[in-house]
């Protein structure tokens, strides 16, 4: 789950990290008031759970309340990366001596948290690392003991930092790591991190992603997060515990398991069709075939339906019963094609034959070809 800059900064501030003083506003006049409260000079920043807002013109400095009003008028209503901007963060300007970079994430190779630091802030860290690998310091942390000041300070050796600054930054990295732990973060990235003229480090911008599997135990924090932009149908599916994503094609897909669903979509594209959706009922959701189908059938762009089951944990007989039940309830007129294998396949195939009068294809390719051909024929 992603967070807007203002929400993430509030969480970091609660954990003792320094962030600029500021306020969230939704109108030019409120932006002017907020700027006035900060003494006029400020930054006006578009709020959306995405990076690179500055490049799109969504972050502007202002020297006075009137300038802040003007900046707000320009930014509000902008669309950046598909997000319509309706909220701004009006923030004090910080006297910057240097822009730094810091982040905590997890390292797949070592299965450990990794703290990243670079003195080159404000740019993409991967570009920095590509130009000079030694410029990005990596600290692998033992999650059972956490990050220590000494470990953090040692990792900064050889960088162009005066002694006191090095200790301040080391302290900050420890605090950032602790925040990563407290916030069950998937990613906590501070870019840029300001080193001020008086030797403090302040979070200028930050990206916080809460681990999706930790949302339940971090309910209070998750309430401050940005929900994914979802269509009505996607939201309805999510509320019923089903992963549904609308796509642009016309072949509806119902499959079990993320991998099989993706592979089924790939096969549809390979054989000249276009999938209408991603929808999988793997894992514990395999009992929800009926609900899933009720959602899928609400997409009126669908010209044919492909049901691709390969049961491992998900029992195909249970899924087939759901499909049959939904079919009888909604009585859809679109052509449907099955391919069914794995756990419970004998009962599932028998049920589909008996109740729906359809014969599942033995090969997935044949089922996909039939579904694509039916959709293309209907569209022509």
């Amino acid at each position: 789950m992603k967070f807007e800059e203002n929400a993430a900064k509030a969480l970091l501030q609660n954990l003792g990290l320094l962030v600029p003083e500021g306020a969230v506003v939704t109108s030019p006049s409120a932006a002017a008031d907020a700027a006035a409260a900060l003494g006029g000079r400020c930054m006006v920043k578009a709020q959306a759970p995405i990076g690179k807002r500055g490049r799109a013109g969504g972050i502007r400095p202002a020297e006075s309340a009137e300038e802040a009003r003007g900046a707000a008028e320009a930014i509000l209503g902008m669309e950046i990366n598909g997000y319509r901007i309706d909220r701004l963060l009006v923030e004090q300007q910080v006297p910057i001596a240097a822009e730094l970079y810091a982040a905590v994430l997890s390292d797949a190779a070592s299965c450990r948290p990794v703290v990243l630091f670079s003195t080159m802030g404000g740019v993409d860290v991967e570009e920095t690392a590509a130009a000079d690998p030694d410029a990005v310091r990596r600290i692998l942390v033992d999650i059972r003991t956490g990050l220590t000041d000494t470990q953090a300070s040692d990792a900064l050796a050889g960088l162009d930092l005066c002694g006191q600054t090095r200790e301040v930054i080391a302290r900050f990295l420890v605090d950032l790591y602790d925040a990563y732990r407290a916030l069950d973060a998937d990613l906590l990235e501070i870019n840029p991190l300001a080193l001020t003229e008086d030797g403090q480090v302040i979070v200028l911008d930050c990206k916080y992603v809460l681990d999706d599997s930790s949302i339940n135990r971090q309910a209070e924090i998750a309430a401050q997060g940005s929900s994914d932009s979802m269509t009505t149908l996607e939201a309805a599916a999510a509320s019923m515990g089903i992963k549904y994503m609308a796509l642009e094609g016309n072949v509806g897909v119902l499959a079990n398991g993320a991998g099989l669903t993706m592979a089924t979509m790939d096969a549809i594209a390979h054989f000249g069709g276009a999938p209408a959706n991603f929808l999988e009922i793997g894992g514990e959701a395999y009992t929800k075939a009926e609900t899933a189908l009720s959602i899928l059938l609400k997409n009126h762009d669908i010209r044919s339906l492909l049901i691709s089951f390969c049961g491992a944990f998900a029992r195909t007989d249970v899924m087939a019963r759901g499909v049959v039940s939904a079919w009888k309830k909604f009585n859809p007129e679109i052509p449907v094609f099955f391919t069914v294998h794995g756990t419970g396949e004998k009962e599932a195939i028998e049920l589909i034959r008996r109740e729906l009068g359809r014969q599942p294809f033995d090969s997935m390719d044949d089922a996909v070809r039939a579904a694509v051909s039916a959709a293309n024929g209907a569209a022509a």
Partner: protein
Amino acid sequence: MILRKEHRILVQGVTGKQGTFWTDAMIKYGAQVVGGVSPRKAGANHLGKPVYASAVDAAKAQHFDVALMFIPPIMAKAAAIDACEAGAELLICLTEHVPLHDALEMHAAAKASNTRIIGPNTAGLVTPGETFAGILPAFNATVFRPGNVGVISRSGSLGTLLSLILSQNGLGQSAFYGIGGDSIIGTTTREALEIMDRDVRTEAVVICGEIGGTAEEDAAEYAASMGKPVVAFVAGRASPPGKKMGHAGAIVSRGKGSYLSKRRALEAAGIDVADVPSDIPKLLPAYLKNAA
């Protein structure tokens, strides 16, 4: 390690609905289940096997090599640490949606006890004709049959389909390795490939990958150094970028983990990549079929 008939398995969460269903299937298939863990039913017998309060308790009573977890997400960390402390050599974590930091703690505990973790979010392991541990239809002879092709899959359902396609084409599996759909997993594609490389019964390997992360890219380099043929299918070519495709690990972000990046890395290492799963048998050498 490749799961063998002689490996002794302890099932954590054995008395639950799924634990019962799959443990029963495992025992009938020939897996050596030596007991289970269920704190509230300690001392009882379940499926004819003793139930213990913890894996550490079980280890006091008898030896086991493998711990298999049927445990809900919030309890997964404690169960995994228990299995590590009990000295399990292999820990198979089937649990989906384990909180990321809990998973990191599990991996740290495993490192300390020299336990290999498979998963989280795996469907488990099958060695056709011998044994299995997990939630896979090993008992379905149209899907899994003994042979000489190793299968490594991030996805249970897709790995099952790949195994079915191999079997339909007269090719059996030496071992099926479900490594899990999470972004941080104990045994990576590359490590599973190393295990298959050392296994004398495995003569070729199918990598069943998907978009997200760099597991396939990391494995490509090693695959190129192997004497055995390796072929691959990567799911997610038709998936939109920036979206999480069901699995926690299946997301293309910051330009990493894309289908093209994976396909290019694999092909640069001399690995044929199938456009659709059904093309896999055509990419494998013909002599495998005669041997199977």
